[in-house]
C-alpha cells in the first residue's frame, strides 16, 4: 500500500490546477508554487525595498517549507513590499508582509493561502467566490499526492500536490467536492466555511490488490487491461511456507505447480532447454535467481503476468509468463524488528504404499527364477554359471545372494539341506525396513529470520538475516543456508532518489554418496544388522562403479588373496566413508537512480549484477566400497594368482574430486517515464508512457575440475596416475578379466550470451472509464541469425479496458461494487540458447589412424533464419466485486498460439541432413481461469472466508514436421514424438484383446492379434510397430487445477486449510514387468503359472518356455502400455492445514510488542486420488506407470514476533 503511493509520488507530482474557463474567467489562472526547501523554519531573514510581492513570498517559501497558494490576480493587485527582518518567525513575517495588501492570508498546516479580506472587499453581485482547500491523507496519516478533487456538477478539478494539499475556487456558496484516488473509496464532501478540510480516504477493499508492478512501472489496475494476478504479503504468509514456490501454489489461477515445476497457462515450447519456467523478475530486473532461492520472508508481494499485454514488454524471454517478486522495503516511521522461527519435521515415506513383495515371496521368486534359468542350460549348473563368468572366464555378470547359495550347492560347498535352511534364514530378514529405520532419519529443518525495517523522510532501510538448517532424509546429510538482504532507499534531493541493495546467500551442504540413498541397492532378504544389533556384511553388492560387475565366484576366489581388498559391504559403514561437501555463494547487487527532469518526466537508470559460485568437493575414503572396488578393478596380474606380480594401477588411498563452477550475469537499463493528466471539456485524460533500453549478459565460464588419487587428508598429498594410459588404452583388470579404462571428462565448454532490447509502453485512460494500452519491444541477441538481426521484428501488444462499474448506467446497481472488462492481444518470445545461426565446428584430434591429426567436425549447420519462439496471447477477462465487495474475483479466457517453435524437423535427406532443428513447430493453448474470494460470514468474533481458484487449459500441437515409423516412440517418449492436432504430452496405448494361457494379446494396426497359437498351443509372438496401432488415451499433463482455501477466525484464533487439486490427465496403472528378472512387486505372487491358470496377471519371463523368453520383452512393453491400464490421475490433496493464535493487542502493549503469533501446521496430511491403489499422482511416473515413494507428511511449528 505504502509502496504504491510512494512510488507514484516520486514521479506524479502534477500540481497544476485545471479549469476549462481559464481563458475567459477572471479568476481562472491560478498558480501554485511548490517550493520545498531543506532549510528549517527556525528563522526568516528578509531585506526588501519596494519589491514585488511575488519576490518576497518566493524568498519566504525558500527559507521555510511553506507553500503559497494564490490566484494570479492577487499579484496584480499587490502593493510593493518593504521589509527588513532577521531570524524572525513566520507569523510575524507574514503579518508584516500582508499589512499593506488589499487581501489577507490564512495559514493551514504548511500552506499559506492568500484570500480576500471578506469584510472589506466588495463582492461582485453575480459571482460567489468560495475557496475550498485542504489536505488528503490516508488512514495512517500519510498524505496522498495526485488525488483528484472535482467540484460536483462542474468541470472544475484539481489534484493534490506532493504534500497532499489541494486548493479550489468554487462559484457557489455550498459546493460539493468529490475526492477520488485510485485504490481508495471516493468521498463526497460539503465544506462549510473557509477552514481547511482534512479528507481521510480509506482503502477500497476490492482495489487493495489493484496496484500492479510490471517491473518496468507501477500502475494501477484500473489503468491496465492485462491479466495480472498479484499475491500480497498477507496471502503469501497465510501458511508457514517451506519456500516461495510453495507459497505461490494455489494462489494464482493458471499457474500450475504440478510436481513442483511452474507452468503458466500450459506449455508453449517443445524445447527442454527453454522449459516452462516463467521469467523471474526481482525488484524490476530479470534475474537468474530461482524462486526457491528467495527467502519468502523478504518478499512483499508477487505479481504474475499472464497475458501477452503484460509480458510482451519482456520481449523474447517472456513467452512462459513473468513472475515479478517485489521485496520489502523500510517503512517510514518507527523502527520495526520482526523475528520468525519455524521448525519443520517430515515423516519417513510410507513403504507400504510401494506394494513390494515380502522377503519370503522374493526368496521364492528368485528360487523359481533360478530353476527356470537352469532349464535354459538343460539343467547344467556349470553352463549356467559359466554364463555368469568368474575370474579368468568370460565376462562377469552380477547375480544375487540367492543365486550364490545355489552356486555353492552346485559346487558342493553346501548340501541341499543347508541350502534350504540358508534360504529359510533369509526369509526372516527385511532389508527395506531395516534401511528405513537405520539409514534414514526423520527430515528436520529449523529456520530463523530476523528483519529490521526503519525509515524517515529521506531514507528507508530494510535488513534481514535468515538462517536455515536442515537434516535431509539420509543420515549424515545436512545443509545450512545463510541469507542476508539489505535494501536502502535515499531521497537525495527533490529530484534525485536512489536505491541500493545487496542479497548474499551462502549455502553449505554435506551429502553422502547418492548410490546409497535408496533401500533398493540390496535385495529385501539382505540385512543391515543382526538380531543383536551388530552390523552384518554382505560379500558384494550390485553397484558396478562403471568398471565391471561382481558375483560370488569372483569374491570367493579373491577372499583369501591378500593382494586385493575386500568387497564386503554394509550400507551404514559406507554412509560414513565418503562425503560431498558443496558450498554455494550467491550474490545479487543492484542499484537504481531516479531523476525527475520536469514535472511528469522521470529518467531512471538501473543496474544489477548476479554471481553464483559453487565449490564442490567429494572425498571417498580409502576404505570406502567405491575405492576398494576401484583399487581391485585396476589391479593387473602378470603370472599366476599365487606367484605372479600384482600391479596396482590406482594407488591405495582416498580420492578427492573437486569442482568449481561459476555463473554471472548483469543487466543494465535506462528508462524514461512520462505521465500527464489533463482535462479537456468534460473529459479527464490520464496518459502514462515509458521508453527504455536494456542490455544483458549471462556468462558461464569453464568449470575447474580436479581429481586426485591416493589422497591423504592428513598430509594433503596425492599420487600421480599414468592418466594417458589409464584413460585411453586402459589396463587389463585381473578381477574383471577385461580391459578397463578410467573415465575421463576432458571436454570443456562455456557459454556467454548477450541481449539488447529497446522497449516502449503506454497507457491512456479516459475519464477513469476507458483504458487503452500498448507496448512494443525490439530484441536482439548474439545467437540470432544475421538475417533476423538486420530486420526489425518487434514484439508488441495492445489492450483495452472498461471500468464498467463507473459507467453511469451501471453506477446505480447497488449490488455491483466493481466491474472491469478487459481485452488484450500481445506477443512474447522464448530464446533457446542451444542452437546458433553460425556454421560451428569442433576441433577434434581423435583419429585413430593418424592420432596427431586435428580436424574439424561440423557440429551445427548454420541456420541463418534462427529467431526467437513467438507466443501470441489473446486474453479477455473481467474483474468483479459484488455485494459491497463481499464477493470478489476475476474470470479470464485466453488463446495462446505459439509459433516458430524450435523443433527437430524432418528434411529431405538429399539436402544433406535428415533432421534440423529449426523454427518450425506450433502449439496452441486455450483456457479459462476463474477466481473468487469472499469473507462471507462475519458475526461478532467469527469470520469465515473462502477462496477458490480454478484453471482449465487445453493444448494442441498445431504443427509438427517429424514422423517416426515406430509407434513405440510415441508411447515411450511423448514429449519428443507427437502427432499434429493432439494434446502435447499425450499418453498412447495399445489395444488389449485378452489373455490366453498367460500370454496377453494385443491388436495390431489391422485389428489382428499379435499372438497366435498353433494346434499344439505354441504361441507365435509378433511385435507391434506401426504408429497406426496405437491410440491416444488422454493427456499426461493435468488439464485443470486449482485450490480451495478456507479460513475460520474466532477472536485471535485462526484455522486455515488449503486443498489443491490437479486433474483431467491420465496415468498408467502400476503393472508387473513381464520381462527381465528383477521383480519386486507383490503382484508377482498372483501371476499366471501352470498351477494358477485362472490368474488375471500374465505369466512372467520366468514362466515362458525358453525359446519364447526373448519375446517376453515384446509382450511386457505392450502389456504395460495397454489400454486396460489407463486410470485417471486426478487428485485432491489437503496441502496445508494450520492453526494459529495471535496474542491480543491489549496484552501485547504491556510487553511492548506489536505482534506475537504462534502457528502449528501440517503439510500434505490427506490425499484423495481417483486412481486409488495407494497411488500418489504427485510422485508417480505417469507415463511409465511406476510407483515412487509418496509425498511425505510434514509438521511445522512457527513463531512470529514483531517488536
Amino acid at each position: 500500500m505504502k509502496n504504491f503511493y510512494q512510488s507514484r509520488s516520486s514521479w506524479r507530482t502534477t500540481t497544476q490546477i485545471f479549469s476549462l474557463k481559464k481563458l475567459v474567467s477572471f479568476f481562472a489562472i491560478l498558480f501554485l508554487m511548490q517550493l520545498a526547501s531543506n532549510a528549517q523554519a527556525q528563522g526568516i531573514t528578509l531585506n526588501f525595498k519596494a519589491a514585488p510581492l511575488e519576490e518576497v513570498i518566493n524568498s519566504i517559501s525558500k527559507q521555510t517549507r511553506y507553500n503559497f497558494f494564490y490566484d494570479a490576480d492577487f499579484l496584480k493587485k499587490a502593493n510593493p513590499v518593504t521589509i527588513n527582518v532577521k531570524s524572525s518567525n513566520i507569523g510575524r513575517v507574514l503579518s508584516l508582509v500582508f499589512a499593506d495588501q488589499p487581501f489577507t492570508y490564512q495559514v493551514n498546516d504548511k500552506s499559506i493561502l492568500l484570500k480576500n479580506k471578506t469584510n472589506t472587499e466588495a463582492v461582485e453581485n453575480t459571482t460567489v467566490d468560495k475557496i475550498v482547500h485542504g489536505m488528503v491523507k490516508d488512514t495512517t496519516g500519510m498524505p496522498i499526492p495526485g488525488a483528484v478533487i472535482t467540484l460536483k456538477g462542474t468541470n472544475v478539478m484539481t489534484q493534490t500536490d506532493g504534500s497532499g494539499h489541494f486548493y479550489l475556487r468554487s462559484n457557489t456558496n455550498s459546493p460539493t467536492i468529490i475526492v477520488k484516488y485510485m485504490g481508495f473509496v471516493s468521498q463526497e464532501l460539503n465544506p462549510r466555511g473557509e477552514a481547511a478540510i482534512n479528507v481521510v480516504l480509506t482503502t477500497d477493499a476490492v482495489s487493495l490488490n489493484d496496484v500492479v508492478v510490471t517491473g518496468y512501472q507501477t500502475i494501477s489496475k484500473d489503468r491496465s487491461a492485462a491479466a495480472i494476478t498479484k499475491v500480497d504479503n498477507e496471502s503469501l504468509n497465510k501458511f508457514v511456507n517451506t519456500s516461495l514456490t510453495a507459497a505461490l501454489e494455489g494462489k494464482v489461477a493458471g499457474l500450475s505447480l504440478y510436481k513442483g515445476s511452474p507452468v503458466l497457462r500450459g506449455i508453449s515450447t517443445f524445447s527442454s532447454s527453454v522449459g516452462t519456467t516463467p521469467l523471474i523478475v526481482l525488484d524490476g530486473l530479470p534475474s537468474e535467481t530461482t524462486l526457491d532461492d528467495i527467502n519468502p520472508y523478504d518478499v512483499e508481494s508477487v505479481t504474475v503476468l499472464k497475458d501477452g499485454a503484460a509480458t510482451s514488454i519482456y520481449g523474447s524471454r517472456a513467452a512462459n509468463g513473468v513472475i515479478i517478486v517485489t521485496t520489502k522495503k523500510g517503512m517510514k516511521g518507527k523502527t520495526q524488528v520482526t523475528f520468525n522461527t519455524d521448525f519443520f519435521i517430515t515423516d519417513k515415506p510410507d513403504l507400504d504404499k510401494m506394494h513390494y513383495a515380502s522377503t519370503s515371496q522374493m526368496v521364492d521368486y528368485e528360487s523359481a527364477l533360478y530353476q527356470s534359468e537352469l532349464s535354459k542350460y538343460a539343467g547344467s549348473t556349470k553352463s549356467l554359471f559359466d554364463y555368469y563368468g568368474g575370474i579368468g572366464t568370460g565376462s562377469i555378470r552380477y547375480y544375487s545372494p540367492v543365486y550364490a547359495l545355489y552356486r555353492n550347492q552346485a559346487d558342493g560347498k553346501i548340501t541341499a539341506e543347508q541350502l534350504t535352511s540358508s534360504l529359510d534364514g533369509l526369509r526372516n530378514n527385511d532389508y527395506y525396513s531395516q534401511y528405513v529405520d537405520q539409514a534414514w532419519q526423520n527430515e528436520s529443518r529449523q529456520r530463523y529470520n530476523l528483519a529490521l525495517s526503519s525509515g524517515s523522510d529521506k531514507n528507508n532501510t530494510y535488513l534481514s538475516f535468515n538462517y536455515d538448517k536442515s537434516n535431509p532424509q539420509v543420515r549424515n546429510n545436512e545443509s545450512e543456508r545463510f541469507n542476508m538482504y539489505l535494501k536502502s532507499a535515499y531521497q537525495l534531493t527533490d529530484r534525485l532518489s536512489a536505491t541500493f541493495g545487496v542479497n548474499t546467500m551462502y549455502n553449505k551442504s554435506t551429502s553422502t554418496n547418492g548410490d546409497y540413498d535408496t533401500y533398493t541397492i540390496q535385495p529385501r532378504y539382505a540385512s543391515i544388522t543382526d538380531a543383536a544389533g551388530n552390523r552384518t556384511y554382505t560379500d558384494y553388492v550390485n553397484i558396478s562403479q562403471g568398471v565391471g560387475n561382481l558375483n560370488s565366484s569372483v569374491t570367493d576366489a579373491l577372499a583369501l588373496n591378500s593382494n586385493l581388498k575386500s568387497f564386503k559391504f554394509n550400507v551404514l559403514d559406507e554412509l560414513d566413508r565418503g562425503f560431498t561437501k558443496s558450498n554455494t555463494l550467491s550474490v545479487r547487487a543492484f542499484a537504481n537512480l531516479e531523476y525527475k527532469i520536469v514535472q511528469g518526466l522521470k529518467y531512471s537508470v538501473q543496474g544489477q549484477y548476479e554471481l553464483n559460485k559453487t565449490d564442490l568437493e567429494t572425498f571417498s575414503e580409502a576404505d570406502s566400497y567405491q575405492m576398494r572396488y576401484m583399487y581391485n578393478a585396476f589391479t593387473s596380474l602378470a603370472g599366476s594368482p599365487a606367484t605372479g606380480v600384482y600391479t596396482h594401477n590406482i594407488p591405495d588411498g582416498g580420492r578427492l574430486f573437486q569442482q568449481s563452477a561459476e555463473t554471472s550475469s548483469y543487466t543494465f537499463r535506462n528508462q524514461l517515464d512520462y505521465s500527464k493528466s489533463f482535462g479537456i471539456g468534460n473529459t479527464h485524460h490520464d496518459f502514462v508512457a515509458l521508453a527504455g533500453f536494456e542490455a544483458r549478459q549471462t556468462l558461464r565460464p569453464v568449470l575447474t575440475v580436479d581429481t586426485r588419487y591416493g589422497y591423504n587428508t592428513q598430509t594433503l598429498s596425492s599420487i600421480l596416475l599414468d592418466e594417458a594410459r589409464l584413460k585411453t588404452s586402459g589396463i587389463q583388470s585381473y578381477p574383471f578379466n577385461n580391459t578397463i579404462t578410467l573415465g575421463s571428462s576432458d571436454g570443456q565448454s562455456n557459454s556467454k550470451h548477450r541481449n539488447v532490447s529497446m522497449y516502449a509502453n503506454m497507457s491512456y485512460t479516459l475519464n477513469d472509464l476507458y483504458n487503452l494500452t500498448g507496448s512494443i519491444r525490439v530484441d536482439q541477441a548474439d545467437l540470432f541469425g544475421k538475417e533476423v538481426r538486420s530486420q526489425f521484428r518487434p514484439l508488441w501488444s495492445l489492450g483495452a479496458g472498461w471500468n464498467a462499474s463507473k459507467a453511469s448506467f451501471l453506477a446505480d446497481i447497488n449490488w455491483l461494487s466493481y466491474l472491469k472488462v478487459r481485452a488484450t492481444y500481445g506477443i512474447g518470445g522464448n530464446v533457446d540458447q542451444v542452437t546458433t545461426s553460425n556454421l560451428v565446428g569442433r576441433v577434434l584430434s581423435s583419429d585413430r589412424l593418424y592420432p596427431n591429426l586435428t580436424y574439424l567436425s561440423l557440429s551445427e549447420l548454420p541456420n541463418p533464419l534462427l529467431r526467437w519462439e513467438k507466443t501470441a496471447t489473446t486474453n479477455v477477462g473481467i474483474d468483479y466485486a459484488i455485494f459491497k465487495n463481499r464477493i470478489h474475483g476475476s474470470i479470464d479466457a485466453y488463446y495462446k498460439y505459439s509459433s516458430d517453435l524450435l523443433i527437430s524437423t524432418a528434411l529431405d535427406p538429399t539436402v544433406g541432413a535428415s533432421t534440423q532443428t529449426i523454427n518450425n513447430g506450433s502449439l496452441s493453448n486455450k483456457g479459462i481461469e476463474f477466481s473468487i474470494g469472499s469473507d462471507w460470514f462475519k458475526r461478532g468474533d467469527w469470520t469465515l472466508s473462502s477462496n477458490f481458484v480454478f484453471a482449465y487449459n487445453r493444448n494442441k500441437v498445431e504443427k509438427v514436421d517429424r514422423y517416426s515409423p515406430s509407434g513405440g516412440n510415441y508411447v515411450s517418449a511423448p514429449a519428443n514424438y507427437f502427432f499434429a492436432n493432439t494434446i502435447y504430452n499425450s499418453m498412447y496405448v495399445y489395444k488389449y484383446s485378452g489373455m490366453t494361457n498367460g500370454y496377453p494379446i494385443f491388436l495390431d494396426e489391422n485389428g489382428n492379434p499379435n499372438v497366435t497359437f498353433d494346434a499344439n498351443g505354441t504361441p507365435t509372438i509378433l511385435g507391434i510397430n506401426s504408429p497406426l496401432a496405437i491410440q491416444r488415451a488422454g493427456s499426461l499433463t493435468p488439464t485443470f487445477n486449482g485450490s480451495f482455501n478456507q479460513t475460520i477466525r474466532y477472536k485471535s484464533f485462526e484455522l486455515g486449510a488449503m486443498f489443491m487439486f490437479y486433474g483431467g490427465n491420465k496415468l498408467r496403472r502400476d503393472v508387473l514387468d513381464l520381462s527381465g528378472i528383477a521383480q519386486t512387486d507383490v503382484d508377482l505372487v498372483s501371476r499366471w503359472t501352470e498351477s494358477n491358470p485362472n490368474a488375471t496377471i500374465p505369466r512372467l519371463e520366468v514362466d515362458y518356455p525358453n525359446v519364447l523368453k526373448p519375446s517376453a520383452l515384446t509382450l511386457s512393453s505392450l502389456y504395460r502400455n495397454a489400454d486396460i491400464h489407463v486410470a485417471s490421475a486426478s487428485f485432491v490433496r489437503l496441502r496445508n492445514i494450520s492453526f494459529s493464535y495471535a496474542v491480543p493487542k491489549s496484552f501485547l502493549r504491556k510487553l511492548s510488542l506489536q505482534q506475537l503469533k504462534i502457528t502449528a501446521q501440517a503439510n500434505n496430511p490427506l490425499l484423495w486420488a481417483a486412481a486409488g491403489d495407494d497411488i500418489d499422482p504427485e510422485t508417480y511416473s505417469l507415463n511409465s506407470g511406476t510407483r515412487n515413494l509418496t509425498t511425505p507428511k510434514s509438521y511445522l511449528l512457527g513463531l512470529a514476533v514483531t517488536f
Partner: protein
Amino acid sequence: MKSKYIYTLLFFMVILNTSCKKYLDLKPTGKITIEKADEFYQLVSLPNRAYPINNFQYLSDDQYMKESDVVGRPVNMNIINFLFDEKTNRPQLLTSSSLYNQSYVYINRWNIIISLVDDSEGDQAVKTLAKAEAKVNRAFDHFLLVNTYAKHYDAATANTDGGICIMDKYDLEAQPAKSSVAEVYAFIEKDLDEAIPFLQDKPANPYHPSLAYAYALKAKVHLFKKEFAKAAAAAKQSLAINNKIYDLVAYSKLTGTRPNITVDLNPEVLNLVYMTGYNELNFGYNFVISPELRTLFGTTDARFNLFFDTTNASWIDVAAGSAWWTPKYNTFFYPTVGMKTTEVILMLAECEARAGNREEAVRLLNEIRVKKVLTGATLAVPATVKETMNLVIAERRRELLFGFNRFWDLRRLNTEPDYAKTIVRVFPLVNKTVPQETYTLKPNSFLYIIPFAQDVLKANPSLTLNTDETRPF
C-alpha cells in the same frame, strides 16, 4: 522543452543501435565458428567417412550369408538380395538408406566449402585448393550414388535414364529434383576437370584428395562410360604419380611376428573411405566370402592365405565352404571403398585388353600378381580379347575385395553380352530341414538398381523410383 528530451532519447537510440551490433557479435568459444579460408580448407579433411553397403551387400557372387540368418527368418533386404527375390516390393522394407543419407551429408559438407569459401577471409590459393578438393569429393559421392541408385551408364539411353538428385550448392531448404544419368555423369566430369589443375601431389594430410587419386577417379568414370581410351590416359596419369604395389609375398614370407602394416605403411592407398569406418574389418564376421570366391583364390594366393579363416566360427557355415576376413585394421590396413593403385593398374589392364593389347594387359596383371601370389603368379597371354578380359575380371574379384567393387563390376559387365553373368545360387547347402532350391539373378535384373528409401520418397513426392517397383505411399 519536452521535444528536446525526445530528440535526445532518439539520438541515444540511434547511437545504441549501432554499438549494439558490436556488443552482440560474440564468438562462441570451445567451438569454432568457421569463417576463414584455412578453416574451410581443414573442413575437406574428414576421417572415418563411411558408405554403408548393407542395401546390396549380398547382391553379388562374392559375399555369403550364414544359413541360419536366412532360413525361417522374416524377409529383410539381406535375404531379398541373397535369394534374388524379385517379388517383394523393396521400397516397403527400406524405411531409410544410411548409404544415401550419409553420402548426401558428405555432399553437403563439400557444398558448404564450395558455396562459402569464396566469401571467407584468407589466401586465394587456399580457397582455390579447398574448392578443388571439395569438388573431387563431391564427384566421388555423386559417382557412388548414381552407380547404386540408378541404371548403369548406357550412352544410348543415359539422357533419359533416371539418375539421382544433383546437389550443387549448400541449401537446406532446397527442393532437389532428379537428374538423368547423363546429367549426373556430366556434373561429375565437370567437377573433376575443374579440380584437377589445382590439386597437389602430396596434400597436407591423407584425408585431402591427391592428384593421383583424382586421376584414378577420372579413369574410373571413363571406364564406367566405356570411354576406354580416356580411361587409360587418366589411369596412366595417376600411375605416373603413384604406381606402388605392396609386396604381400615378401610380407607372407616374414618369419616370427609380422609387423603391423598400418595405413601409413600401405603405399597402395589412394583415398581413405570405408564401408562402416576405419576399423570395419575388425568385425570380420560381417565379411564372409562365398565358396565361389574362395575357390577362385586357389591355394597359393597370399591375399587369401594371409587374410581369411575357414575354420569354425559362429558366423559361418564351415560345411558350405565360405571363409571370413581376420586381420584387424591396425595389423593390416586394407582399403575397401577407397581406391588403391592396384585398382588403377587393373583399369589400365582392362583398357589394354579391350584395345587388343593382350600382352600389355597380362603384363600389368602379372605386375600385381607377383606381389600377391606365392606360386604360379605369372599368367600366360591368352589368345583372345575375351579370355584376356576374363583374366582381368577374375583378378579384379581377388584384388578388389568388399566395398562396392564386385557389385559395380556385375552391373557394368552385365551390359556387355560377352561378360554378362547370370548368378546361380543353390541354397541351402548345409541345412537339410528345408528343401534345397536354385536361385538365379539375371544380368538385367532390376535388383541391381537400389530403390530410394521411404524417408526420401516421403520428403520429395516428385522423386520417382528408377525401377518399376511401387512407391509405398
